[in-house]
């Protein structure tokens, strides 16, 4: 009953707001409430660091702080859900607050993780949940945006969460996100869900300390859902880099059948997996979403697509130089047109046309370098790649400054165009 109280409270607020015709004013009540909780989370995070590093408090005390933060986070998420369900149009601010709240909790878990490795995994689930709020949106994710109030981490002050993650969250990059989409199962499908076991078979030595405790239960729950209603069901997992498979503990089958359910995870990447029934078991396979950049495709299309095995256009050195130049020119044009779409004054001092042109060609050069490496296909998302490229451009142009958010936005626009 205690757990349901906040939910009831918000439902009542929502109903009252609706019935009194206050729908347009709902943001005036709930968004300040979310902001208040967020500021509480921020100060609790600061306190948590203090007691963790300075006072060397007991685990029970740390646990109490985690609980407090969890309550704030769940309050924020409930308000966010209420606003989403109410059809409230301007979701950008509440979504940013909700995402930030999850990242804060993830950072707290990361603080404690050296004492309890399970917390790395916990931190990942929150971090991924925050990022997934921006999955179908073209808006810049909250972690790249300026925080309402700067945050103190140790002796450093940060104005964006991505900078905090870069500073403290390298462990998050040891994991990969696996989205599972279960489909085409029927209620008659004969699978003993409780008898399933999720096993890691391969893992790089430096990733062995990371756990995957929560994955099995999440997979089983999703299976139960899909078998109960025959619809599609999905979930996501935070798994340390490695190879995994789902095994039936008692199934009388050839040992090879486990290959059907193999899942391969690379660190700091997103993998979209589909699970479908196959004979009397199931198969897991990735839903590929890689596309070669358009300009790279047009030149290799004719020769490569027909000839087959390992063929590629055998261009002379001069030709390939020309092609590379063409790509660079096309990218420079994209950067220039992108600069018109963003607030270029917030990037660097680009008022002088000569400096602007120099910036455009230097940025294009760095973008091209990344597109032609494996990074382009292996990066977490376009936003993450934009962040990495923007960091490199900043290092070249103005190494002393922090990476401008508008620059990340600009790179994202260019990457979307190719």
């Amino acid at each position, binding site marked *: 009953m205690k757990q349901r109280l906040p939910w009831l409270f918000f439902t009542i607020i929502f109903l009252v707001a609706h019935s009194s015709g206050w729908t347009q004013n709902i943001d005036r009540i709930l968004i300040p409430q979310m902001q208040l909780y967020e500021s509480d989370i921020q100060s609790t995070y600061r306190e948590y660091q203090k007691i963790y590093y300075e006072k060397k408090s007991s685990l029970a005390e740390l646990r109490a702080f985690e609980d407090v933060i969890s309550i704030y986070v769940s309050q924020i998420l409930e308000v966010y859900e209420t606003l989403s369900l109410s059809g409230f149009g301007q979701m950008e601010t509440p979504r940013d607050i909700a995402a930030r709240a999850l990242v804060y909790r993830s950072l707290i878990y990361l603080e404690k993780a050296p004492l309890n490795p399970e917390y790395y995994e916990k931190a990942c689930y929150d971090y991924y949940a925050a990022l997934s709020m921006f999955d179908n949106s073209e808006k810049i994710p909250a972690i790249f945006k300026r925080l309402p109030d700067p945050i103190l981490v140790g002796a450093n002050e940060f104005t964006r969460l991505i900078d905090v993650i870069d500073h403290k969250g390298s462990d998050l990059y040891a994991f990969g996100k696996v989205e599972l989409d279960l489909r085409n199962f029927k209620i008659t499908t004969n699978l003993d869900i409780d008898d399933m076991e999720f096993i890691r078979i391969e893992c790089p030595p430096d990733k062995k300390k990371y756990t995957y405790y929560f994955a099995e239960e999440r997979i089983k729950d999703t299976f139960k859902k899909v078998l109960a209603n025959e619809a599609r069901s999905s979930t996501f997992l935070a798994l340390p880099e490695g190879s995994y498979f789902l095994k039936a503990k008692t199934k009388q089958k050839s040992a090879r059948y486990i290959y059907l359910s193999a899942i391969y995870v690379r660190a700091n990447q997103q993998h979209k997996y589909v699970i479908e029934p196959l004979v009397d078991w199931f198969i897991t*396979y990735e839903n*590929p979403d890689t596309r070669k950049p358009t300009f790279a495709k047009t030149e290799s299309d004719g020769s490569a697509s027909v000839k087959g095995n*390992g063929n590629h256009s055998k261009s002379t050195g001069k030709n390939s130089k020309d092609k590379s130049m063409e790509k660079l020119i096309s990218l420079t044009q994209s950067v220039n047109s992108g600069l018109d779409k963003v607030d270029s004054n917030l990037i660097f001092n680009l008022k002088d046309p000569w400096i602007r042109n120099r910036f455009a060609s230097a940025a294009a050069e760095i973008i091209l370098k990344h597109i032609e490496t494996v990074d382009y296909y292996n990066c977490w998302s376009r936003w993450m790649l934009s962040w990495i490229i923007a960091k490199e451009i900043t290092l070249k142009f103005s190494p002393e400054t922090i990476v401008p958010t508008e620059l990340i936005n600009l790179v994202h626009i260019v990457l979307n165009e190719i």
Partner: protein
Amino acid sequence: MKRVEKRIFIILILFLLAIMTSGSQAQRMNFDNCWKSQQYITLLDTMLRVMTKPIEDTYKQHDFIQTFGCAYEEDDIEQNSIRAVSRAIIQSIRNRKLSLRDDLDTILSTRPPRPDNLAREYSIYVNIPGESEPKAARYEIKILDLETVPTVESEKAVWTRIVTRYAYKEDFNIAPIAETTASEFVMVMEESQLILKALEKKKFSRIKKMLLVDNMSLVYPKSIDELQFGDSMNLFDEIDSEKIYKGIFLGKGIFTCETPTDDIVICKFGEERLFRMRIDTNSFRRTKTNYADLNYQAPESILECIFLKFSHEKPKSLPELGVIK
């Protein structure tokens, strides 16, 4: 005493034999030849045998034509029966160069044909092509045979034999002359069986030739959800994206492709990354449409067998690529 011991020994042997033979389908899997089973023959062999059955004179005299259908895709006899009858009816409609006016799937699922019930006759409306407008005509369907037959493809496979005719003689008189193709689906099954057998021997160039992979593309599937058996795709090297390799989709997320080491592998989507390759989702092509037209899907049991046959040869983890931090 010796006699008792002998009896116990025989019972023990029998018990062990029973355990060995009573496994799941996967246990019975024959990795030497996925199409060979100790218990069952293939559905294709069954169909080739039953399709020699001539149409009865009574029906022939009354302008009926005979067609056949089969299905193995579903794990349910009723659903397979519906598919088999539907395939036989569509074959009859193709033979007579007609088009359907009614929703055949709805008609069949409302009163499903099953091997053990009495739904044996249906009546639907079809369009007879005319010079200006098509003419509506009533079409009679009689199911003569509908049998469940355990085969290599599925233990719940179903085959059917039907006869069909126009309800009214005047429609018969104006309609185009009917062809006598018994089942195009069986012909497609025959071809795909050859392809899958060639795949078991990793004869990739033969498969490419049979599927006309190098011909002009007729359809461009946009995602893996739109892929059908025999569709082709390009894979490229993760490090050097100019290097292109061919892949052919088989079904249920399974495909075959060339690799940088000149090997032929049978993978599920995602496993191409074990060989440092990526699928270019812009490169999906269909050069042969008959598999999609007849809604052919490779048998799951065969796909599973071929996939598992070579699975142990693959690396167990993704290669190091200098992943960005």
